[in-house]
């Protein structure tokens, strides 16, 4: 314990951080809660001199009543439920593989970590180009058709050159599930490096003697993975899944990266919108009250999901 007479020093050292947190984190959170319960609140009205607003829950009702809310919630939940398990399992397998090789381990670690330090909008644009059907360009005499790298790959593998077999991934007229597939691939790819890093760190801190013991016990490889590695890694896995869900519910930039600000293919703007996207939309329309209400709803969902996660992981993780 710090000596009581010396405590003012501790507070002094903490002061810069506390002041910044109070101004930029704590106050906005309080303000969000307050705004969400104000009827007809708008930043413009407030700036225009209207000092008081009546209090009520209409903001919440309006947010939930919007047809876009249901679409956004569905998208967000779908993305979470699909990407978190896929990326966790993939990250586990890659981390185990990385941990077991000796040569190139450092180099490959760098390669797998690269997406983490790359701008996700930039990655999104690359993915968009890969899945894009750019279509026909050039003069009437000389038409150049491009269908995106992925479609080219499909053509190469299937050997069927008929353009009718190409999948319209994200362009005008594309299917919802094609859009969703692209998003899942992109988000999983984007989420891998952090998960691999955490799991690899966890793997390297497992006492090697357990593996020696497993060898002495003639344990087959698959059983070593499922009965020893995964249980001993369970605290890390729980961490990765929980942060994965929290991050998944806040998915936004990845959609912008692929579809741009339309949040959907040209014929159906907003179809791929997420909860965070909905909040930004409300802000753009100067409906701060509704945006705050949506933010609180999202917070509530994340809270409940995280509690469930913690409850499950407490039962399933060891020590």
């Amino acid at each position: 314990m710090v000596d009581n007479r010396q405590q003012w020093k501790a507070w002094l050292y903490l002061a810069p951080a506390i002041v910044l947190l109070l101004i930029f984190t704590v106050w906005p959170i309080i303000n969000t809660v307050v705004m969400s319960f104000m009827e007809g609140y708008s930043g413009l009205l407030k700036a225009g001199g209207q000092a008081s607003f009546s209090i009520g829950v209409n903001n919440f009702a309006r947010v939930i009543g919007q047809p876009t809310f249901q679409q956004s919630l569905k998208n967000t939940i779908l993305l979470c439920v699909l990407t978190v398990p896929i990326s966790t399992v993939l990250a586990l397998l890659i981390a185990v593989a990385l941990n077991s090789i000796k040569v190139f381990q450092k180099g490959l670690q760098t390669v797998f970590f690269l997406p983490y330090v790359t701008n996700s909008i930039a990655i999104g644009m690359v993915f968009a180009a890969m899945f894009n059907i750019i279509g026909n360009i050039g003069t009437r005499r000389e038409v150049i058709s491009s269908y995106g790298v992925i479609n080219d790959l499909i053509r190469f593998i299937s050997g069927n050159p008929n353009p009718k077999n190409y999948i319209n991934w994200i362009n005008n007229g594309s299917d919802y599930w094609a859009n969703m597939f692209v998003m899942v691939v992109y988000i999983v790819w984007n989420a891998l490096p952090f998960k691999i890093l955490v799991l690899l760190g966890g793997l390297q801190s497992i006492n090697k003697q357990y593996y020696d013991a497993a060898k002495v016990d003639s344990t087959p490889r698959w059983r070593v993975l499922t009965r020893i590695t995964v249980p001993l890694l369970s605290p890390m896995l729980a961490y990765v899944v929980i942060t994965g869900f929290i991050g998944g519910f806040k998915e936004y930039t990845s959609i912008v990266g692929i579809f741009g600000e339309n949040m959907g293919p040209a014929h159906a703007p907003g179809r791929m919108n997420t909860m965070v996207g909905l909040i930004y939309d409300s802000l753009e329309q100067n409906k701060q009250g509704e945006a705050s209400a949506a933010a609180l709803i999202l917070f509530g969902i994340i809270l409940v999901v995280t509690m469930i996660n913690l409850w499950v992981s407490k039962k399933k993780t060891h020590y």
Partner: protein
Amino acid sequence: MKIVLENLTKIFPSRNKKSNDEVIAVNNFNFEIPDGKLIGLLGPSGCGKSTTLYMISGLQKPTGGKIYFGEDDVTELSTENRGIGLVFQNYALYPHMTVKQNILFPLQNLKGADKMTKEAMLERAYEVAKLVQIETLMDRKPSELSGGQQQRVAIARALVKMPRVLLLDEPLSNLDARLRLQTREEIRRIQKETGITTIFVTHDQEEAMSISDMIVVMKLGVMQQIGAPQDVYDSPANLFVAKFLGTPPINVFEGRVQGGKLFIGDAAVMDVNSVEDQDVHVGIRPEGFIVDENGPLVCNVSNVEVMGRDVSVVSTHENSENPIIRSIINADERMNVAAETVRYTLKPHKVFLFSKETEERIYF
């Protein structure tokens, strides 16, 4: 099943590629471990005893030489296929499994013809648990067990698949003194009951001497002596072995042999007719002294510790290589506790001579 080590060598390459300071952990071992015996690999830390054990287990690959289990050459065989049980120094029990799951684990790995039914596995697990007396702890996690209990679980896990060889790496080092005494007798009992050839590694000579059928004394990767504990104690091959075995440790004097007599300082303490004249190390076991008013070896008494059954006399002598000389005298001899000097004659079979240069034993 007997185990034969043939020219077994392990060299750890130097970490720095430019320098050439590779470490020879195990240097050209040759010995045979008879079937069904308990063998102690004994030596100070860094002598290669654990490396030898891990090479027998297959977890480390020898740089040279061969290992035979019975008539089979297992040198190239992987650990999984050697059919050994190994108890690690800190037990390496799987922390997320209960005691029962830990013991069942090796059985669940059995394949093909060895595959067992669930009932048979449980029966075997309980059988082994009974042997090591942990059958009441089966549903606990390792973290809920004491060190001694964990150790017994580790032995049970190693024994449950009926290994051809049981290996124990410093099995008692994590236990307190009382538990250590108890557990080492337990290990002895279990080994006798199962009859499995067992090799254990220790740096504690008392531990090795007390339960082994045979001990192998090692130093810096070189085997010094192998034999029954009492034989090695009674007839050490060199000064290192003599010093390493025995508590209290052997007393060593600078001496010389002249005209068939052994001198310590100016005193002729013993006849050694067959030895040529030379300077020697004289090792005298603490129990090799007889208090005698006319004895030739005169020591200055610094302390007399009365322990009931025995009296331990702590004294000094200018030719002693150790700071103190400790002799153990039967309490019946009634020595004068207040005296400043004590005179000893020596029991010849408790006195060993070692060459000054090679430190090898000179027999007389």
